[in-house]
């Protein structure tokens, strides 16, 4: 057989090709590696030098390219919670696979420690290590479902930490997780609650670009249905909508029975235990998305003058009678602006003369008295007028309303006898909502 062994595969002996993820480095915002985990052989952390180089070149932290080639490896990274998760791979691997896995790592940390910060990770370094080992074997994802992991490695809680410290017991599960191999790997068996409840949040984010004159260039809605299901036993749920036709572009949690959806437009599923994202959907610009807010603006610079005018007025539009809340305006003003002298009719505004970031916390919009921000900007004396026009970023919330008009019709439960408490909430938020000036 030796003659079939390709020379190259021989060379692999000395340096194993990780089919999948070889190593993981966690890097904080000041560029220090504070954790490393290797699933195969140890890769020297000097490999991250290439990452640091890219980081230095990038003008903003989020501009570091997600895939960086080095002579012997590829670095695939994501930036979450101001931590770079840098995966090292050595051969052809689908990059999305790696990125999705890294997201799962971030989610798991957040799930376990409440927050995903350097401090939290350092405080729980052993659990982190155990988790990473459990999530990946030889570079293959092993267990990434939160509730399987929680059976294998119990999340740290104050109580348990105290008990463990006193009694010396462990936070590692001794038994094979029940969900690991069942047909419903996302749900463990033997779930018990005294209060059975199922809550669904329909949350829509609207992304839009509005041009100078106020007309919509593009608008789309990214919607999700997040669920918190605490039900005893093996409940089988169905969720139906008043207007399922809206949902022509959807991504489901694996628990959803796709065939049933295709045929009847009904979501039928055995839910995971606890919090999960049941569905995400996308309503595209062709379907005429209603724009809930408008901005009147007048930002002008004159040639040869060291003053610029700034006027901004906001108003509601097509909100279906619901109020706009938590409105926050931000805008990156041109570099030439030294300072601003503005007057908000409500809320507070700040301007950072270093980063040139203007932000105005408006709060609620009262349709009878539209909020405005007016005043002047001082420019560098003698400099020519700025070339770029600032873009205005708007954030807002609308409670009790899904902008697309999506409505849940009913939720039914089969397979269990008790009567659960059910709740549905709707909310609309601004995603990347930008107004050009």
């Amino acid at each position: 057989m030796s003659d079939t062994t390709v020379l190259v595969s021989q060379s692999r002996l000395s340096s194993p090709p990780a089919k999948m993820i070889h190593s993981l480095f966690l890097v904080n915002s000041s560029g220090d590696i504070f954790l490393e985990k290797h699933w195969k052989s140890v890769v020297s952390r000097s490999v991250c030098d290439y990452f640091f180089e890219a980081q230095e070149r990038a003008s903003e932290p989020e501009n570091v390219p997600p895939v960086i080639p080095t002579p012997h490896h590829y670095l695939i990274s994501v930036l979450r919670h101001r931590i770079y998760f840098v995966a090292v791979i050595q051969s052809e691997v689908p990059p999305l696979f790696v990125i999705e896995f890294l997201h799962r790592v971030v989610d798991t940390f957040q799930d376990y420690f409440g927050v995903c910060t350097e401090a939290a990770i350092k405080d729980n370094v052993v659990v982190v290590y155990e988790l990473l080992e459990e999530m990946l074997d030889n570079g293959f994802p092993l267990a990434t479902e939160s509730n399987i992991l929680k059976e294998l490695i119990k999340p740290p809680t104050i109580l348990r930490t105290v008990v463990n410290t006193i009694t010396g017991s462990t936070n590692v599960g001794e038994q094979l997780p029940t969900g690991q191999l069942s047909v419903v790997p996302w749900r463990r068996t033997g779930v018990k609650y005294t209060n059975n409840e199922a809550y669904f949040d329909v949350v829509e984010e609207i992304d839009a670009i509005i041009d100078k004159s106020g007309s919509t260039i593009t608008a789309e809605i990214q919607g999700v249905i997040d669920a918190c299901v605490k039900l005893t036993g093996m409940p089988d749920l169905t969720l139906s909508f008043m207007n399922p036709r809206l949902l022509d572009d959807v991504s489901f949690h694996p628990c959803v029975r796709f065939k049933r959806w295709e045929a009847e437009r009904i979501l039928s599923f055995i839910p995971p235990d606890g919090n999960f994202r049941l569905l995400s959907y996308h309503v595209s610009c062709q379907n005429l998305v209603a724009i809930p807010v408008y901005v009147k603006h007048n930002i002008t610079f004159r040639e040869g003058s060291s003053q610029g005018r700034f006027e901004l007025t906001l108003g509601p539009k097509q909100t279906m009678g619901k109020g706009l809340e938590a409105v926050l305006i931000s805008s990156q003003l041109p570099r030439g602006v030294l300072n601003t002298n503005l007057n908000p009719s409500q809320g507070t505004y700040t301007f950072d003369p270093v980063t040139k970031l203007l932000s105005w916390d408006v709060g609620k919009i009262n349709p009878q008295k539209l909020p405005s921000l007016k005043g002047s900007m001082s420019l560098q004396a003698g400099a020519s007028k700025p070339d770029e026009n600032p873009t205005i970023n708007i954030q807002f919330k609308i409670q009790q309303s899904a902008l697309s008009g999506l409505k849940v019709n009913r939720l039914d439960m089969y397979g269990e006898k008790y009567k659960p408490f059910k709740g549905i909430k709707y909310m609309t938020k601004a995603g990347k909502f930008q107004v050009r000036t």
Partner: protein
Amino acid sequence: MPVVTELFKWEGTKAKLNTHFATENRQFGSKMTDSKYFTTTKKGEIFELKAELNSDKKEKKKEAVKKVIASMTVGKDVSALFPDVVNCMQTDNLELKKLVYLYLMNYAKSQPDMAIMAVNTFVKDCEDPNPLIRALAVRTMGCIRVDKITEYLCEPLRKCLKDEDPYVRKTAAVCVAKLHDINAQLVEDQGFLDTLKDLISDSNPMVVANAVAALSEIAESHPNSNLLDLNPQSINKLLTALNECTEWGQIFILDCLANYTPRDDRESQSICERVTPRLSHANSAVVLSAVKVLMKFMEMLPKDLDYYGTLLKKLAPPLVTLLSAEPELQYVALRNINLIVQKRPEILKHEMKVFFVKYNDPIYVKLEKLDIMIRLASQANIAQVLAELKEYATEVDVDFVRKAVRAIGRCAIKVEQSAERCVSTLLDLIQTKVNYVVQEAIVVIKDIFRKYPNKYESVIATLCENLDSLDEPEARAAMIWIVGEYAERIDNADELLESFLEGFHDESTQVQLQLLTAIVKLFLKKPTETQELVQQVLSLATQDSDNPDLRDRGYIYWRLLSTDPVAAKEVVLAEKPLISEETDLIEPTLLEELICHIGTLASVYHKPPSAFVEGSRGVMHRRLPARTGSGESTESPDVGTAAGGSAPEAAPSIIPSQGDLLGDLLNLDIAPSTTTGPPPPTTGMQMGGMDLLGGGLDSLMGDESEPLGGDIGGSPAMGAGFGVAPAVMPASLNAPVGGGLGDLFDLGGGVGMPMGAYIPPKTVWLPAMKAKGLEISGTFARRAGVIQMELILTNKAMSVMTDFAIQFNRNSFGLAPAGPLQVLTPLGPNQTIEVSLPLSTVGPVMKMEPLNNLQVAVKNNIDVFYFSCQYPISMLFVEDGKMERQVFLATWKDIPNDNESQFQIKDCHLNSDAASNKLQGSNIFTIAKRTVEGQDMLYMSIKLSNGIWVLAELRVQAGNPNYTISLKCRAPEVSQCVFQCYEAVLKN
């Protein structure tokens, strides 16, 4: 701080309680969290840990192991504690056991003898009644890359592969892949591969998915094996498992399905139907893998089929959805969408708006979106696109603004009807006077002129106004090109060009070349006023410059002008080939291959998969299946035998981007290293006495019929040197020999060929006795990057020999003839012929003993003869084998010391510089030199044609004829051959 936020998510009222807990927790402070494991005293840390690890108290032990793990996470070396940690392994505390296993995996390799201590516990754990422990043991054991341990692994692994618990089976499946990585032979001998194949039919979908993943990984290192034997039955099993396994398993299965070629369109459709639901998966990697399968199988469906249209419609929404994900995912998705819109623009033709850029997108997302916008631009949406692009041109980010301006130019070239609009948009932008915007605009306007000649010249006046603000070479060159090209319409063209000439030597090469050409154009158009100018530029280019390209081009013009002005006109002012949008499209064969690799790194970099990761030879080239209803498989990976005449497919290359196609014909590089042919015969040299600087120009000024240049044979030859640009070659310049170029090099002076590589003397490979009168002797050489087999065939028989052909057996480096053996005339008795056969390195690969052994079969009309010969490995050393210094250092450290081998070269009397020069001729590159105590250390790198790097350290001591050489390579078996080459090169 571990805080129980989750419990209170729904009830805001309990938030208070939450903070209460948090403060309480803080009081416990460092005592309660793992951060305490970091706070050991610096002094005697290891010693302290050692004591704690050997403590009798279980709890203390566990805490100590945790401290060790904590040190490991920050990259501290705690391998010294190996025996102490391993001693903690025998425990019934699962957490402690896991922690010890974690440690073992990290350090076993550095302590192989100690690692043996762990074997017994592993074997015992593989029999544990708890499946979790059985799986854990087999999984960890596979991660310990120590040969001695793998021997003990076989039996437990065999049991675990047949374990009653699927969790153990699925873990064991992955373990086979791990073991194969350590010892492929062992895995084959033990029959694990067959067991693994059986697991594809396992009842549990997770086991199936893992078996597929393991087999795929193994198959990757065995490109020719038939491990994943896909047939309709196994495909059916995979499709069934697809619906039931986890998201990761789905990715493995989909990627595996993508390698299958359905028998006909019906099977193709039925697979597509079963894969489509995956498009609605929340995991974007699953979605993209599904897209890959569909894009590939779709190729087989007839276009008039209803289902084909349905499928096209189904593909758009998931792709759009990917764009609302996190920026990193978006980036990968966009790179792939870029391929998809080139292959099937109809899928996303209505989705232009989702690619509009948001101002706070990361720059890498912005640039990709921009590129796709141009690809989707059409007459229907061009107004929208231009409005957007104009908007982007006022953004803050300079890079992005430049790309946006370029994009406007590309739109003009792509959508003809929009050209006018684009030009006026560009003029608007030029009015902004923003320096970099103006410069980019001028660069693209030049392209628009190329595409639509004589249409938009009215804007030249505006462009000229901005002449002074241009400070970037590309913009200057573009402007100069425009002035030269339209010299007859610009009244003060001579003044404009003259103004550039003042600082000629401070300009970059690009501008110098362009200026030279532009002035020659101007001269040909307006000879009377510009004679002085052209004299000036020609002498600047030929006498005062040490840039060979510039000098050569100067001489070419000079001679053309002096010998045959009419020809000069025809050459310099020839019609230029039109440019088109096609120039930035990916070449179709590469595109097909990339479509088959959607979702991979190859698709992100738009390079063929074979270009990835060092040493990845033997990658199958995938093609989209042809649309046939027949049962024949159309996929043919390059594994066939190297048939005599058929040259193996060369790796597709990317067509140069439009920037390279700019300007005129003379932008060709004529660097000597790229001339591949043998040195031109010197017979073409007939023009020795020509007064180059003298009267030639006068002849142009005077009556054109004056036959001054007519009798000089050199000038037509000049044209032949430019045979690369046949489109612009007037027929009259078809010269018989390529002598001109050789002359030019002589004139330029000092531009000799690089020092030659070492070529061993010819030896007799096949004696006439053994081959019915045919004697073959030969050698190998590498000339200008091409490997040549140089043969002398002698006919020592009485009859004529004809019909020669040659074929190689598989060999270590995939050598194969790149063309047929060129013996065109019959070989008469006692005749000898010299043939040189170019070789490629893309043939089938098989390891030979010795490594550089080559088995050859030669056929003629009489019989087939076999012989074997050995080639010097140096002919596989490629020209780009010079490593960056830092990479060298990193690689040197990275390669384990076991792979280092040392040799002595005796009786060599060169000094280190001479040696280094000599070696360089054979593509052995010296990267650095260091002198330590009178001893010169040379650090060198070599790259083999299959991507293997060899690093060398050569020690030369003055006065000592014996050199010492250390070689480091990931494939240590080449070291011996490389050493032989060193010896041969240095001693010859």
